[in-house]
């Protein structure tokens, strides 16, 4: 995905997502993968600029205007890497060797070199992007589980055994007992 000169122009994914804007962060629920993401202010700002027309260089300039603070290009690339990993971008965004003179490791399409990371850590905390992801629980995973000697279903229906316990059948009865080594 790139403009006429081949520079990457990231595009945010919108299909199959539920998006809720908080005061500064953005919550995104992926209906296809049943994962929920929290984009911190910097990651949310980058995602908003992923319109399929804005290059990374232009994004950096706009973010600096929006946030009224210097923005490191490595921060934007880190945000794009995290957004891509979370499947919140369409297509793949590859960083070219002429993108901001940053070092690039083979196979590292969006990760950070040590120099980039140190530069980010020295930057304002507000410009460090973060995408936090959880897997949405299935209903049975959200309820209390069955303890030792409590009934269970070896087929997996109903309340599961608590962690470290296994559903063990003996005749007509199935109960939760500590798992074997």
């Amino acid at each position: 995905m790139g403009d006429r000169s081949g520079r990457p122009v990231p595009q945010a994914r919108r299909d199959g997502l539920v998006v809720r804007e908080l005061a500064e962060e953005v919550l995104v629920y992926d209906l296809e993968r049943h994962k929920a993401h929290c984009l911190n202010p910097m990651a949310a700002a980058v995602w908003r600029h992923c319109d399929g027309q804005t290059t990374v260089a232009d994004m950096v300039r706009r973010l600096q205007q929006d946030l009224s603070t210097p923005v490191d290009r490595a921060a934007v690339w880190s945000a794009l890497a995290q957004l891509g990993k979370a499947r919140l971008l369409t297509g793949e965004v590859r960083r070219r060797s002429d993108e901001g003179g940053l070092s690039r490791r083979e196979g590292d399409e969006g990760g950070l070199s040590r120099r980039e990371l140190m530069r980010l850590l020295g930057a304002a905390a507000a410009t460090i992007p973060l995408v936090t992801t959880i897997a949405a629980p299935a209903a049975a995973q959200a309820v209390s589980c069955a303890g030792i000697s409590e009934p269970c279903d070896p087929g997996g229906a109903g309340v599961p055994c608590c962690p470290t316990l296994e559903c063990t059948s003996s005749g007509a009865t199935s109960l939760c007992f500590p798992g074997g080594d």
Partner: protein
Amino acid sequence: MAFISYGVRVGVRVNDPAALPRVLERLPPGWKPARSPVVSRLYSLIVGGAGTRPGVRRFNLLYMDVARLARRPELDSVLETFESDLQLYVADTAPHRLFVHAGAVGWRGKAIVLPGRTFTGKTTLVAALVKAGATYYSDEYAVLDTRGRVHPYARPLSVRERGAFEKAKRYTVETLGGRAGVTPLPIGVVLVSQYKPNARWRPRRLSPGQGALALLAHTVPARRQPERALRTIQQVVSRAPVLKGLRGEAEAVVAALVEALDGSHGRHGEE
């Protein structure tokens, strides 16, 4: 019989009328008989008992619609499965409420919500707060309306007395010297904590977005109704702080929490 629980219509039939009182004990708190026999789920309990031949006993069977859920010699065990499955079904499908797996108490007109899985010490912390004067809302579900207020789900507390994996015993809140809440309360604080021996209570405040994820991780219909879940959770985190941390003994946390909420030590809570 048909009944309604949090807007969910359920039917239950039993082959032995003498077992019906024991079934009714297992229904969710606040259930009401339904006039219409039209239900979204039907449970069928077939009580076993003595067989036709000497020394032979028939199994107790439980069906959910056409699927068999349990087949056991002990009726209590089957009733526990009935209660668990019914509870989960109501929590997952209630049309106008969002069920979060959490303890909940009322303190000075606000709710304290304690999300957490089993063995994180929710019931212990709820019981300690009740003993300190909080009103009891639930040790299992924080039931939220669209405005993010907590409604009662005051079933008897399930306390594991001798250890984490021991079978729980049920205690009404009155036997603990407390009382149950009846009116919906706005949330004052959300505490995401897990018991660890000798841990010091030093919670950190999560951002609203991180707090929302912490709540969603314990939301029963998160996958079935994510849009409604996020909309309700957004109401909560926009108004109430979400704190997270390990905790030691419940009494120490309660003391710190009461002091923080009240601004003074030892005052009792009110609705």
